[in-house]
């Protein structure tokens, strides 16, 4: 397979995925499918090199805080887009101004919450004026879906560019250029000779990406060798089955995705808004739940090892990640412990069994959610401490209800915008009275808020890591949410494809440039 377009030494490579692209224009999309493409073709000022979770200048030469609120980036000289247009500071300014101006609902502009304005004093200098001082996360943001730099000569300033416009104009300066674009069906990439950044040149000249709707078809095609690599997403069953297949290799890498369930502090049993409100009892209920969940079982039975247990709020692989819940709850080795749960409840004087309504969703958090939560139900009920009423709801309704506080205990999942611990803390637990955090469970701890702010502006790596650990510990004690699983990134490649391991890193960006066949 493969072929088409011009070829050089390297064998063309075909990749299959069940991702869905929504819009190619970075200002108009904020989803994995589109970002996966943008990562290949758009340049970033900052990016995560292979194998590391931390960001470094990509097409930028350097970047520093020239003042607490002024983050200045120097571009490498003589950068060009694949179409020959110069890539200068004005393109960069154009990109971010545009993002903020359009502020598309499906777009990532919300990530630029801390960006006041952008200046381009000269061809290679960009100055980002921030709202809060020495924001350590901003570099990460520059590598996030808000980061791709676009060609001002191609993209309209005030509205989204259509996919055709972008592809036709070859407004790309990432590792790849797109030669043929068949929406959500087939994209043909060709290495972009003009790219000169931290990731280096592409190993494979021509890459074709085939878009599938059904995981089983993707699986069958990689098994039959119709495609060389299958990345995102194979059903747990498929992965388990492919592991046994000698013709292909299954690669696991750390995944940024986390799955967890949330307690609504107001409506959960003994919650502040309930008739028998009692913080102590409420906490006991949460602890008991944490004691009872069996993450290994979930990871093995339901997800066939495509997810791994998550014992903290910051997933494994990121700087500052811990396993605090392992020590605090369950049998101390990560397994469940009914006795401990019983005790927790008894000590707080909670009469068992505790009735809880557990809400989950399948059309957004994946078909397997129903199996996952069926399993959790039976885990919680195992010791007779809980009686769980399971309820699933279609996503639109689901998100409305949970925001309205209809659900007392409910499932959520998170996929990071950028690979930094901050992205797993701020949106969840940074909860000053003026602004509600994304999970909206009325959990509020000023101390935690303070710490979160602090880590955000601490430039010293080690010190910041300590703060992050501290936050995790504090939160773990109160359990606003119970983390369950951390998604592995799973890629399957036919024998003879190399480089998969390199790109399955904590950057959570799958780069085709790393792959080669031969």
């Amino acid at each position, binding site marked *: 397979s493969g072929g088409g377009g011009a070829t050089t030494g390297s064998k063309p490579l075909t990749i299959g995925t069940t991702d869905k692209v929504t819009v190619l224009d970075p200002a108009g999309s904020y989803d994995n499918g589109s970002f996966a493409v943008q990562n290949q073709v758009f340049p970033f000022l900052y990016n995560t090199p292979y194998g590391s979770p931390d960001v470094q200048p990509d097409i930028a030469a350097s970047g520093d805080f020239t003042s607490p609120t002024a983050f200045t980036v120097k571009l490498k000289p003589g950068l060009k887009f694949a179409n020959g247009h110069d890539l200068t500071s004005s393109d960069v300014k154009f990109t971010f101004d545009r993002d903020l101006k359009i502020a598309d609902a499906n777009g990532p502009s919300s990530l630029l919450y801390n960006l006041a304005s952008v200046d381009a004093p000269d061809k290679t200098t960009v100055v980002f004026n921030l709202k809060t001082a020495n924001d350590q996360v901003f570099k990460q943001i520059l590598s996030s879906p808000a980061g791709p730099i676009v060609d001002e000569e191609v993209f309209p300033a005030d509205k989204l560019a259509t996919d055709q416009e972008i592809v036709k104009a070859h407004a790309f300066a990432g590792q790849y250029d797109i030669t043929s674009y068949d929406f959500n069906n087939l994209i043909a990439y060709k290495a972009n000779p003009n790219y000169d950044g931290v990731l280096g040149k592409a190993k494979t000249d021509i890459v074709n990406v085939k878009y599938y709707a059904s995981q089983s078809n993707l699986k069958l095609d990689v098994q039959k060798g119709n495609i060389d690599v299958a990345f995102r997403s194979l059903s747990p*069953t498929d992965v388990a089955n492919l592991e046994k297949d000698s013709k292909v290799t299954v690669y696991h890498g750390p995944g940024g995705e986390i799955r967890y369930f949330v307690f609504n502090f107001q409506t959960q049993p003994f919650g502040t808004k309930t008739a028998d409100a009692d913080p102590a009892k409420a906490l006991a209920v949460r602890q008991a739940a944490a004691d009872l969940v069996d993450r290994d079982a979930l990871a093995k039975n339901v997800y066939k090892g495509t997810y791994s247990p998550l014992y903290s709020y910051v997933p494994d692989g990121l700087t500052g990640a811990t396993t605090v819940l392992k020590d605090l709850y369950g049998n101390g080795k990560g397994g469940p412990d009914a006795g401990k749960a019983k005790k927790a409840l008894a000590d707080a004087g909670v009469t068992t069994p505790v009735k809880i309504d557990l809400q989950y969703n*399948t059309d957004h958090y994946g078909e397997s959610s129903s199996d996952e939560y*069926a399993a959790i139900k039976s885990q919680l009920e195992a010791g007779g401490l809980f009686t769980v009423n399971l309820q699933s709801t279609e996503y639109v309704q689901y998100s409305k209800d949970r925001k309205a506080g209809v659900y007392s205990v409910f499932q959520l999942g998170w996929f990071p915008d950028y690979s930094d611990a901050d992205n797993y803390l701020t949106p969840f637990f940074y909860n000053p009275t003026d602004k509600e955090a994304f999970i909206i469970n009325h959990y509020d701890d000023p101390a935690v808020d303070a710490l979160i702010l602090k880590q955000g502006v601490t430039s010293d790596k080690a010190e910041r890591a300590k703060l992050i650990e501290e936050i995790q510990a504090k939160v773990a004690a109160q359990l606003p949410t119970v983390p369950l699983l951390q998604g592995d990134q799973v890629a399957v490649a036919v024998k003879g494809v190399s480089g998969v391991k390199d790109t399955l890193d904590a950057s959570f960006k799958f780069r085709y440039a790393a792959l080669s066949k031969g």
Partner: protein
Amino acid sequence: MASIPAPQKRGLLRRLPIVHQLRQSVGLQRGMLVAGLILTAAFLLTAIFAPLLAPYGFSQLRDSAGNFGTQLPPGGKHLLGTTVGGYDVLSRVIWGSQTAALVIIVAIILSIFIGIAIGLISGYIGGWLDRVLVTIGDAVYAFPSLLLAIVMSIVISGGRSDLFGGILSAAISITVVFIPQYFRVIRAETIRIKSEAFVESAKVIGAGSGRIMFRHILRNATRTLPLIFTLNASEAILTLAGLGFLGFGIEPTSAAEWGYDLNKSISDVTSGIWWTSVFPGLAIVLVVLGITLVGESLNDLADPRLRTRRRTAGEAPSVATESAIPGGSLDVVGHVDQLEERA
């Protein structure tokens, strides 16, 4: 004239259409009818006695011995193995019949009354009302039922997935598709009967429209209902399965539903785990086969041209001009004349 059955006996027979037909049928036709009846009966019994037959609950994942474990091959504690979610396939299949039956019943009860009522009125009154209703009916009838069902189920369930919400939405979705069918058939019959002499004689006697419709037409027009009933039943199952397959079905924790299970087990098949999909699939096929066999046989027996034997004089009502064979009538669906009527 040797043996003249007394009225009440005929009444009884009429109340038990199947029995009546069974007695008429002969040879292969009877064979098919019987086969169909057996399958259907099996289905209904399973549905009724599911609680007794099923070894486990439809959402049961563990028993005293702990978790079932997922995707166990058939045998041992789980005759038909377990699913990716760790459910017992056999139990799911058995409970599934209950869901299917429920949906069919609700759907058909809902549609049959509305359909008959408007069919009768539209056909008898005629005129503009009739034309409008016919156009609407045909429009809906001609439209892919699955699509309508999907749209409806979104509308109705609003995403809820509990047994009631699920079944009701599935049922109502299907209802919307069926009403036109009953409407067509009853209307066609009504129009046919309306022009028969005995209705006219009722008219000249001076009987009121109400009396004519309900005493003279209705009972003669409902002859073909058992037939449509069966055919719709099978269509209902397929539609339900279709919904479940497209993810508009009922969540496993609230009810067992074959289409849903099939959907969930697709990836299993490609991994050589066949039992999770084959059994629910077979369940669907067999039930539909059974019910359709019954329906087809009824259709044949009702049609003197299709019956193997000519029937004894008099009680030979010719087949409905609108037998609602899945995906459309087997007879002409009205031609120029019908068109003229409509236009």
